[in-house]
């Protein structure tokens, strides 16, 4: 509940007459409250429930929470003010983009929770029975065979989700910082919880944590400098100061630079992506799915808001720099993806390239750019989620078989899985009739409309390069002979099936009939108060 308190304290500092404080209107932020409340409840479950009840209880709680939050969200949307409103004394802005992002996050988390909860693909689930067990020991080998799992992953997921939702609604930088930590810290932990290959899992946790903390420091220093510049951390105040302040612009731009670096890190935009491949590879696959889909959504939600609300008026100074960043990110993702031999790492580099595409939409700074980026996030999230879901199915005796050579001839073993994965890869490549194409299209369209045609051409070339590594997997699956002792495809249980199906259906639906989602994404802009 730290967010709540922080918000209250900060709010008290702002008004001139503290006596007039009223109870904050919370109708708009029920979804956040539900998620965070459920997270706390979930912690209590861990503490109080007997071990064998925890898993069912946690799963039920998580699913119920998501459902309740979604219901609240939907009921709120139906009569929400079109221009959006602020809540919690202006620290949270609940406007159309926020609502869209919340909806996206809730839906993606549903998929992620389903993957996390699955206990059929890997008997007992993808998570270690007890995080305290040292890898390589007798206990470790025992826990691999056991069916228990560390159910703390559920509260951690809910906390992270709460942080993400707050992050994209945050209307001032301090709230944003706190939300950033709330979403990050659980993820650091979740990365280290894999049942198998624990060394890799722990390593990824350490790397993610150290780099994440490092990036947070940058972010925070940026906040400080901007505070120094504007005298406030509220986004609208910064925008107002940027329009006419007598302070040195050095503070503004240095602060902005540091802030943006922190955000870009979270969004795994190159060259701040270095954690991405290692962490994606090392983390348990359901967590990778959650991280890849939801963190990206939240981070870009924050980036969009910061750039549009706080720095819209200075865009001519910084836009060129972010052009460069976008190009670097696309090229790094596309080129380094070419030679990857691990499926998860490959998708990681793909996500770096996608981050570059998303950044193009984010720096378009138009309504079209906003709605396009939002739509892209939606499409990308579901596709990635499903892709990692499929990756978790291809296994051999030592767990997931993520090395590409093990995927050779998969289509002969399991045409369905190969077909689904092919479809998802094509979506990632941006082939028409998949959501990936529509997403790219709307983003690039917005970019061209705001005069970034050269950037779009580079992006398209990068897409073509990236298409190669997606194709390589398809070639391996379809046109190569399977290895004699290759991996088998596990028949997934209901949870994983549901998650993959969700992702695939959304990918297809948004590719074939994207109109309704485009309308949602374009239904409103950021509230500036």
């Amino acid at each position, binding site marked *: 509940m*730290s967010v709540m308190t922080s918000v209250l*304290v900060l709010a008290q500092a702002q008004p001139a007459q503290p006596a007039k404080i009223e109870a904050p209107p919370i109708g708009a932020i029920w979804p956040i409250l539900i998620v965070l409340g459920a997270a706390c409840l979930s912690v209590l479950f861990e503490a109080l429930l007997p071990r064998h009840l925890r898993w069912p209880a946690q799963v039920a709680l998580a699913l119920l929470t998501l459902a309740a939050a979604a219901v609240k969200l939907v009921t709120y949307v139906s009569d929400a003010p079109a221009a959006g409103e602020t809540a919690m004394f202006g620290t949270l802005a609940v406007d159309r983009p926020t609502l869209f992002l919340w909806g996206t996050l809730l839906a993606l988390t549903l998929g992620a929770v389903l993957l996390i909860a699955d206990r059929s693909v890997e008997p007992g689930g993808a998570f270690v029975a007890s995080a305290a067990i040292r890898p390589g020991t007798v206990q470790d080998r025992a826990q691999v065979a056991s069916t228990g799992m560390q159910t703390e992953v559920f509260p951690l997921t809910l906390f992270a989700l709460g942080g993400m939702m707050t992050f994209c609604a945050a209307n001032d930088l301090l709230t944003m*910082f706190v939300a950033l930590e709330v979403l990050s810290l659980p993820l650091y932990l979740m990365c280290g919880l894999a049942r198998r290959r624990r060394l890799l899992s722990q390593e990824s946790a*350490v790397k993610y*944590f150290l780099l994440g903390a490092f990036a947070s420091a940058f972010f925070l220093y940026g906040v*400080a400098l901007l505070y120094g510049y504007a005298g406030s951390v509220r986004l609208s105040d910064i925008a107002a100061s940027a329009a006419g302040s007598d302070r040195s612009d050095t503070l503004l731009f240095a602060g902005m630079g540091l802030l943006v670096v922190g955000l870009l890190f979270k969004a795994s935009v190159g060259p701040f992506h270095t954690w991405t491949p*290692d962490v994606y590879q090392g983390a348990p696959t359901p967590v990778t799915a959650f991280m890849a889909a939801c963190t990206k959504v939240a981070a870009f939600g924050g980036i969009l808001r910061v750039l549009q609300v706080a720095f819209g008026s200075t865009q001519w100074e910084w836009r060129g720099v972010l052009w460069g960043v976008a190009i670097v990110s696309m090229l790094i993702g596309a080129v380094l993806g070419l030679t990857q031999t691990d499926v998860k790492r490959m998708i990681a580099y793909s996500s770096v390239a996608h981050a570059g595409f998303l950044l193009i939409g984010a720096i378009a700074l138009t309504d079209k750019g906003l709605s396009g980026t939002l739509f892209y996030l939606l499409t990308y999230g579901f596709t990635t989620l499903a892709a990692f879901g499929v990756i978790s199915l291809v296994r051999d005796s030592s767990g997931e078989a993520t090395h590409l050579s093990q995927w050779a001839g998969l289509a002969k073993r399991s045409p369905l899985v190969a077909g689904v994965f092919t479809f998802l890869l094509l979506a990632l490549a941006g082939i028409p009739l998949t959501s990936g194409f529509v997403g790219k299209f709307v983003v690039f369209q917005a970019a061209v409309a705001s005069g970034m045609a050269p950037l779009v051409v580079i992006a398209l070339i990068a897409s073509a390069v990236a298409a190669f590594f997606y194709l390589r997997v398809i070639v391996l699956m379809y046109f190569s002979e399977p290895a004699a002792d290759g991996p088998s495809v596990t028949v997934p249980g209901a949870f994983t099936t549901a998650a993959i199906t969700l992702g695939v259906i959304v990918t297809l639906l948004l590719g074939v009939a994207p109109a309704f989602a485009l309308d949602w994404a374009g239904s409103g802009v950021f509230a500036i108060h």
Partner: protein
Amino acid sequence: MTPTYYLLLSALLFTIGAVGVLVRRNAIVVFMCVELMLNAVNLSLVTFARINGSLNGQIMAFFVMVVAAAEVVVGLAIIMSIFRTRRTASVDDSNLLKY
């Protein structure tokens, strides 16, 4: 003595922290360097609060401390688990994931 010196000191501390992250091998020390960076920011915040004549900056510094504390909890847990496994806290030993 103008507040600018505090800002410079803060920048210096931040830089020292950043360089520390780059040059130190021990995970704990690296993590302490990150803490140093956060505290450098705190100094900035307080200084700016002073310059701006509002309390917000100081309040924010408290927030940062709380967050840093939370980070320590998580961070030490992670570092601990890897130390137990590898019997070393050197971050350079964790490089199975690469290329």
